[in-house]
């Protein structure tokens, strides 16, 4: 019979220990996990990006349900263990669930420390520890107001930045004279304070909280100097305490944490402990790298290995987008220590190395942290830096004889050099994984080794390793750059536009370090769209970054003339409309009139100069632009439905018109075509459209992600809804999700395939709150989008007024053609 392993806690440390255990001996144990949180194992380091909106919970899951299933792990979610019976070797949860063990792992983690000032129990006082806290903060941030964050350490600053990004006013209170004083010296602390204040976050140092004010909920914070700061939310991020009560009750040796030996064993030989609840050699750790080192030792011990944990040296990185900060080791001044300092105030760079006997004791890097891993490795190795000393502060690129080529620098690293500090992955492990598992790109490496899966700052190093290991077979286009003007892919650019609050094309190009002065014909229209989509009502459309068709609201033809398509809602027209079109065709001598695939009438061969007059005449007859030129909502094709058809189950024409009137004007990553069919015979061909509706007796079947162009693809079914109103809500929400996530020029079927059809269904169908959010953001954006561009152009209020007239016409004053010399 297999031995029974019971784990109390489902955080990152036991998760990593189990991963290593299953790699070493997949069948050694039957594993049961008691998890007080109702979730799978997720990456707590990444809570800050979730708070700031840069990532979602799904993005930070480490082990999904399938992982537990495939490893035969029994995961008991939402069950808090209340008792360990060491005699009977049995644990009992609050709800009475029991499990017997041969070996037990305690991984109860830590609890946030709440300062017991008066008012600390008021609603609105939050900790920052797990996803529940993040959800509470996000909920609180929706109503705006001011958040006071108590604690100017790593977590406090990340919480402050996240809440600011969620639109709150934020004040950080820190009891010490400078921020992050445990990791930073005063100079770096000062630079950090400036950078935080530049983001509009107020920082008050030497602030001692005396009382949290409020009656039924938080209303403010009172400092001991009498100052009162109004607040709708107070976040305490002042530290953590190992969670040891359970171990204490069981009679295990406990000091600050649960005491373990070098084999991670507690005072009971069958009980191990790992993670933040542990005290080893007098030290308690709260950073992930040491926890992972402990986990590796624990996994080895569970299969009768002899590895020993000898304590960890730790380094810190702040995960606030746009602030680069790295620190490690001990940087207190002392007589027998020397230091090397580099300050470049203009570019905001500060580097300080603390040395003793030609060895690195401490590192603080601000502004340029690229060499953090290099210094840290030398510090851990106790390397003699005597020979490098003269150029040491300039980093690895200038270090003595080592070459400037970053690939060569990575090649020179030893196999045990740590590449990913968050997840404790060394170079050798990544290289082995690339070779053994045939990994091709950074995403593969992330999946298999976790390297660069957390904060992502080592992504460059991982790319170098791929290049080294695979040689020419490495194709970095796993994430293709938007264009030659940048190395960033569309997803990164979109994420950073929102995260950094970039609201103009020059701001994007400046902040994201564009390599060209004003982009190119590929990136400018993409950036213009992203800004239009992300900042409705704030961003002013940049005409010169629009493709000509969108600039003049007509489609350019091969001879430089244009085609004009007025909107016919749902494909329905009238004798008056047809007469108006006929008059325009005659008046402007338009050579061709054709019916389009989307049930509209197209007038081809209109001269550019005539466009404003053509629009004015069409406008008088009630026509608006059909957006046949737009990366936006094109047409809603319909059949006649229950109004006329003997098979029609619903009013498909009516729904098509409603949809078109609701969606028109919306800009999207690529064109969007809809259709509504009145019965499953599907005469409107809804099942090959970007979004389609097939009416049935019981309601409306919503389809998405079809294609009938370059690719042919039938739609996927989103869901069925009983009413028209719901159909419109779901479709608008889906359109908004696509607007927010799609890459420019990426049609819905490609976008949905890229992110997964189920991801779309989960967010639009199964998560009412998300759907409502998308729907509301769509409605908001439409307020600014539903302006008829033809009317604006005809009235000369939109666009560049002189777009349609030549700068000059030169006739008689010009020499006759035969007098001109041929080109050289």
């Amino acid at each position, binding site marked *: 019979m297999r031995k029974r392993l019971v784990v109390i806690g489902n955080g990152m440390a036991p998760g990593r220990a189990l991963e290593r255990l299953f790699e070493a001996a997949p069948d050694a144990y039957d594993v049961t996990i008691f998890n007080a949180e109702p979730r799978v194992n997720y990456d707590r380091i990444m809570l800050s990006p979730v708070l700031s909106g840069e990532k979602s919970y799904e993005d930070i899951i480490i082990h999904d349900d399938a992982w537990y299933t495939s490893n035969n792990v029994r995961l008991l979610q939402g069950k808090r263990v209340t008792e360990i019976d060491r005699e009977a070797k049995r644990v009992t949860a609050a709800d009475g669930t029991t499990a017997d063990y041969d070996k037990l792992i305690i991984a109860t983690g830590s609890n946030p420390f709440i300062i017991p000032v008066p008012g600390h129990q008021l609603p609105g006082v939050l900790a920052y520890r797990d996803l529940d806290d993040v959800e509470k903060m996000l909920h609180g941030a929706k109503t705006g107001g001011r958040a006071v964050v108590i604690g100017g350490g790593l977590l406090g600053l990340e919480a402050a930045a996240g809440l600011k990004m969620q639109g709150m006013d934020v004040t950080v209170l820190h009891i010490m004279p400078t921020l992050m004083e445990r990791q930073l010296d005063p100079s770096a602390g000062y630079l950090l304070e400036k950078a935080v204040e530049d983001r509009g976050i107020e920082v008050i140092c030497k602030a001692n909280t005396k009382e949290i004010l409020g009656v039924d909920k938080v209303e403010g914070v009172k400092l001991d100097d009498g100052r009162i700061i109004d607040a709708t939310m107070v976040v305490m991020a002042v530290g953590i305490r190992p969670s040891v009560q359970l171990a204490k009750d069981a009679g295990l040796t406990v000091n600050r944490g649960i005491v373990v030996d070098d084999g991670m064993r507690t005072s009971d030989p069958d009980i191990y402990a790992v993670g933040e609840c542990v005290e080893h050699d007098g030290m308690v750790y709260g950073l992930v790298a040491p926890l992972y080192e402990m986990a590796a030792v624990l996994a080895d011990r569970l299969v009768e290995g002899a590895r020993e944990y000898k304590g960890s040296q730790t380094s810190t990185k702040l995960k606030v987008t746009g602030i680069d900060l790295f620190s490690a080791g001990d940087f207190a001044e002392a007589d027998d220590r020397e230091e090397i300092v580099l300050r470049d105030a203009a570019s905001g760079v500060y580097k300080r190395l603390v040395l003793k006997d030609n060895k690195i004791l401490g590192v603080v890097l601000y502004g340029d942290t690229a060499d953090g891993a290099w210094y840290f490795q030398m510090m851990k190795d106790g390397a003699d830096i005597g020979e490098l000393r003269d150029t040491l502060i300039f980093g690895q690129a200038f270090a003595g004889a080592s070459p400037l080529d970053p690939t060569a620098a990575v090649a020179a690293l030893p196999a045990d050099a740590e590449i990913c500090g968050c997840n404790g992955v060394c170079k050798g492990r990544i290289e082995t994984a690339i070779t053994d598992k045939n990994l091709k790109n950074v995403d593969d490496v992330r999946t298999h080794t976790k390297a660069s899966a957390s904060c992502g700052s080592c992504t460059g190093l991982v790319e170098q390793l791929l290049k080294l290991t695979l040689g020419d077979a490495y194709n970095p286009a796993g994430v293709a750059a938007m264009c030659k003007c940048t190395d960033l892919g569309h997803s990164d650019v979109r994420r950073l536009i929102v995260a950094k609050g970039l609201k103009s094309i020059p701001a994007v190009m400046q902040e994201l370090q564009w390599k060209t002065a004003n*982009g190119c014909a590929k990136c400018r229209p993409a950036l213009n769209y992203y800004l239009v989509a992300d900042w409705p009502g704030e961003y002013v459309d940049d005409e010169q970054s629009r493709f000509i*068709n969108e600039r003049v609201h007509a489609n350019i033809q091969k001879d430089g003339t244009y085609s004009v398509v007025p909107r016919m809602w749902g494909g329905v027209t009238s004798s008056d409309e047809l007469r108006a079109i006929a008059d325009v065709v005659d008046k402007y001598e338009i050579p061709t009139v054709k019916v389009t695939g989307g049930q509209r009438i197209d007038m081809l061969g209109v001269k550019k100069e005539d466009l404003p007059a053509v629009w004015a005449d069409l406008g008088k007859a009630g026509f608006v632009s059909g957006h046949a030129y737009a990366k936006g909502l094109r047409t809603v094709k319909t059949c006649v439905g229950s109004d006329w058809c003997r098979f029609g189950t619903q009013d498909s024409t009516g729904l098509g018109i409603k949809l078109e009137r609701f969606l028109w004007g919306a800009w999207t990553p690529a064109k969007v075509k809809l259709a509504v069919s009145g019965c499953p015979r599907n005469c409107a061909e809804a099942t090959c459209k970007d979004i389609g509706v097939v009416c049935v007796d019981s309601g409306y079947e919503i389809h998405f992600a079809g294609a009938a162009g370059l690719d042919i693809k039938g739609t996927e079914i989103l869901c069925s809804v009983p009413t028209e109103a719901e159909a419109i809500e779901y479709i608008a929400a889906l359109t908004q999700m696509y607007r927010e996530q799609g890459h420019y020029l990426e049609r819905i079927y490609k976008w949905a395939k890229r992110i997964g059809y189920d991801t779309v269904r989960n967010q639009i169908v199964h998560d009412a709150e998300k759907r409502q959010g998308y729907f509301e953001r769509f409605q908001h954006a439409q307020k600014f989008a539903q302006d008829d561009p033809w009317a604006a152009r005809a009235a000369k209020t939109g666009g560049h007024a002189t777009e349609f007239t030549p700068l000059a016409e030169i006739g008689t004053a010009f020499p006759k053609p035969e007098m001109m010399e041929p080109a050289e």
Partner: protein
Amino acid sequence: MTTFIKVGKVSDIPVLGARCVKTPAGTIGVFRTADDQIFAIENRCPHKGGPLSEGIVHGTSVTCPLHNTVVSLTTGLVEGPDGGGVVTIPVEVVDGEIHLDLGRLPVREVA
């Protein structure tokens, strides 16, 4: 021969945009860059004759609206492997007024 003719003001052309000058010998595209340099080239893409003045202007290049051929405003040459080029027309800007040297236009059917 040199025949500089005034065609309009710099401010008549949008930044990163273009306007046309019609002549009996064909249309000229007059372009304005982000740093207010003015260039004039034949308004006819060497690829399929697209109106270059309708393209997106970036740096000192323009991308043709029909098939994305990129043409240098300074040399008139196509950037990239396809080769080919258009005639560039000398420009002088005096007190914000643009003058083109129309003596350099090639003989071609009126567009």
